[in-house]
């Protein structure tokens, strides 16, 4: 061993991302988190049954839309993504485990993308199944496609935001909760202008495409209801990658 020229092994994204993905899922998908996700989905299911049995048929469409809009989009999706998205990298930082994944000859975005993929892959079934069941139980077929698309977009966008917050800030979980409660559910509901900066408004716009029921502050352009959540997701994952590349690792 005499050469002082460093080796430069090629670790492609196709090789590193699945390995990261596997390690992250194995480490972060704890029983407690799965239980929390299950509770959120179960509440959705129960509410749908209550609505179906207790609400008169003439009000059923409006109540169902409100259920999907206020619970599924307003609470289930952001809370579920917060439960898993924030700690996916944040816990590694807190537990001082990130070093084992960081000190590898791969670009930092591989880790960010793998963490994001782990969050999304776990949450899509957890979120979509309850939303689909809600739409099916309440009996409104036209809601199924827009509700599903809104759920997917919501998971994609919120996962990116919470992944970044968890990677960047020690109190990422609490900042995420603050963002959800204070911004998405209070401040952004004050005016149409502020709602433009709220993800919820774009997701509700998507949902509204399947119904005649009017949802407050859900009057974004159709293209924006798809493009904005995707852009937010891409930007947030990019910021998580930048954070991993620039932040001191403990």
């Amino acid at each position, binding site marked *: 061993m005499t050469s002082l020229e460093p080796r430069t*092994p090629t670790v492609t994204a196709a090789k590193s991302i699945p390995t990261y993905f596997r390690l992250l899922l194995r480490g972060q998908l704890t029983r407690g988190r799965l239980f929390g996700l299950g509770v959120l989905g179960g509440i959705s299911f129960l509410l749908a049954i209550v609505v179906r049995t207790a609400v008169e048929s003439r009000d059923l469409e409006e109540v169902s839309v409100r259920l999907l809009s206020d619970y599924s989009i307003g609470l289930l999706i952001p809370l579920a993504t917060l439960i898993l998205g924030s700690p996916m990298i944040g816990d590694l930082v807190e537990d001082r485990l990130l070093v084992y994944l960081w*000190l590898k000859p791969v670009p930092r975005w591989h880790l960010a993308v793998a963490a994001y993929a782990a969050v999304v892959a776990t949450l899509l079934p957890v979120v979509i199944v309850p939303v689909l069941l809600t739409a099916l139980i309440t009996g409104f077929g036209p809601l199924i496609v827009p509700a599903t698309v809104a759920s997917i977009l919501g998971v994609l966008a919120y996962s990116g935001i919470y992944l970044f917050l968890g990677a960047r800030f020690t109190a990422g979980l609490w900042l995420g909760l603050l963002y959800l409660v204070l911004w998405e559910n209070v401040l952004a509901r004050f005016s149409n202008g502020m709602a433009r900066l709220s993800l919820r408004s774009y997701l509700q716009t998507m949902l509204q495409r399947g119904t005649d029921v009017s949802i407050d502050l859900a009057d974004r352009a159709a293209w924006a209801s798809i493009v904005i959540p995707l852009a937010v997701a891409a930007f947030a994952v990019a910021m998580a990658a930048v954070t991993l590349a620039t932040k001191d690792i403990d």
Partner: protein
Amino acid sequence: MSTLPPPPGVSGVPAAPGAPPASLTPAVISMPPPPLPGQASTGGAVLQIPEGALVVVDRVSKWFGDLVAVSDVSFAVTAGVTALLGPNGAGKSTMLRMLCGLALPSSGTVSVMGKSPRKDPEIAAEIGLAPQQESVFGHSTALQFVRASAELQGVVNADTEARRVLGLVELDADETRRLPTYSKGMRQRVKLAQAIVHEPRVILLDEPLSGLDPRQRLHMVELFHRLGDEGRAVIVSSHVLEEVERFGSNVVVITQGRLAAQGDFREIRALMDHRPRRLRISSDAPRALAAALVGQPNVQGVRFDGERVEIDTDDIVSFSQSIASLSQAANARLYEVEPLDDDLESVFRYLVGR
């Protein structure tokens, strides 16, 4: 911020005529005052880079707000085992983190084989780190953990290599227990295995012997030497002087974030052994003993508090030989001779203050 050219031998740069030999210069480096946050380091010791240096640290400082963790430290490391010695909180772990790119120096430069470990992620292929923290991936077995590390390092036969290094550290690759159920010593060995599975040229081990039993310590020290003999730079941090003695001849002493000494361990050990010492002597006739000690050539100062005598000596060996006859001459019975500055902190303070 100063920058260094690549080490001689890197990128075809030949060693300069008259350059120091490959072994580290056994010199205690006098250090300039620490730079203030926001200031680049200026002046100070000129770093001479030995031929074949794998790691070069040039005027590196690291501060967190107002806290200066590492201050204007320069040294270079060639192949072999090098001990990074210092008391707890001296800045050793921060230095190791900067050596592998986990932390960015506030000023100065770190290079590993001519590349910045922070800016060139690919150099991680030549770095292996066993961090100090005990935490490990909770849901993995040792084999899964080490194999994943090998995969992420681009090792072709990841499973085979993971099994090989687990054998090197005397762990069973087919063990089905999860890592959290492992003892501290077993976790230390798993961390070492993941650090060397890709055969890096620079291996950084942060307090790797803590939690190991004496037999395992011996085995690990042998392994460190074997890795060093293969041409790797093995940098082992420790706060235990006796432990460092077993690592080998190269030592970098850091205390209070500053480089206290660097070079051959035996020379540093001699410095430590011949430093001025302070002793407390208990006797049934302390006044008479104090009077007898005054004026002795190996005694620089005597203090008497009415009950006990404290003396300063710069020759502990001759003082130890003469104290019995002195007390006998003074008709004083000796009860106890107690060193007051025998702890490692005192040793480090002395090295820094020289």
